[in-house]
């Protein structure tokens, strides 16, 4: 049995995925660009 927690590299922002062994998934906040910028935005 194994769960994962993944912290995405999204600059000064948060986006975290939790995925349980049983397939259940949770996302905490999001920071997703429609088109990926070349330079990270800074807040």
């Amino acid at each position, binding site marked *: 049995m194994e769960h*994962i927690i993944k912290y995405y590299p999204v600059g000064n922002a948060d986006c975290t995925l939790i*995925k349980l062994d049983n397939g259940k*998934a949770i996302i905490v906040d*999001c920071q997703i660009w429609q088109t990926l910028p070349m330079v990270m935005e800074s807040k």
Partner: protein
Amino acid sequence: MFDVKADLLKELKKDGLGRPFVDLFISTHPHDDHCKGFAGNFYQGKVDDYDKDKNKDEIIIEELWITPRGLNNNLSSPAEDIRKEAKRRRKLYDDDKNFFGSKGNYLRIIGYDKNKEFDRRYCYVPGILVTTVHGSSLSWLEIFIHAPFKEDVETSKKYDDKNATSVVVQFGFKIDGYTGYKSRVLMGGDAEHEIWQHILDNNADEEKLKWNIFLAPHHCSWSFFNDSDNKKEIKPSADAILDKQIDNYAHIIASSNEIKNDDNNPPCYEAKQQYIKKLKLGSSHFLNTATHSKVGNIPQPIVFKINENGKTLKENATVAGATSISNPAPRAGR
């Protein structure tokens, strides 16, 4: 830039019609840096109206958590998209007293409606331990809600730019065959030191604040330690929370730009130094999403696996073949 959407689509399950879905989306607070890209990446509306072409790859949210401040604000355009979806769901409950949620329509408002609770079918208040989402048991995860408090929500209304109303939760991970939690993760969005003190003052069970992984609030901002213009004094709340780390192998994550020795805040260099000072294993267990590992010049996610051995930092399989790694992942196992 790392392609978050592509990775989410790879990680998430699809329903019988091939539509990706997530069991729970937690919106900790309504600011751009926590909400950007909601529209267009997460499905909004009745699931029956999901168009396989128009809405292709949009992620269905089975259950949505939002704060009272998230429901009543005009702070940011991306947050407005989450608000609209939450209001659509709330109306389903308000229009039908027998409605208790359905696919893609579950909602929980985290916190209080001024001095009273929201409808209990769609609210959670601080102090609650959550074990189910959209009517289904999480089985291996429990979520303890610490905040937001009603007083802090009211304060936040007066000062729109305050980060007072973040959802603060402890995730407790369980493993088959073992009693208790194998690993605990404490996350509080952008919660500032006053909120952490408020949590400490109200918390009845010390176990609920312990952590193996702590997400440095507000992208490693100084606001966890004190007000931003006072870098000489550390509030007792910061020490108390950081002292709740479990054993010698706890990690702190800074979800931020690269932390340089400059005057930026966030991320704040002095905050990073304080975190490293408090960690039992110091700098090897302080990880920054911008620099932890890269493929070429693209930062990669920080991933932990949680199993019978507790939590283990997962090394990026593709890092070994990368030509440029600015800051290789520490080899420490736990």
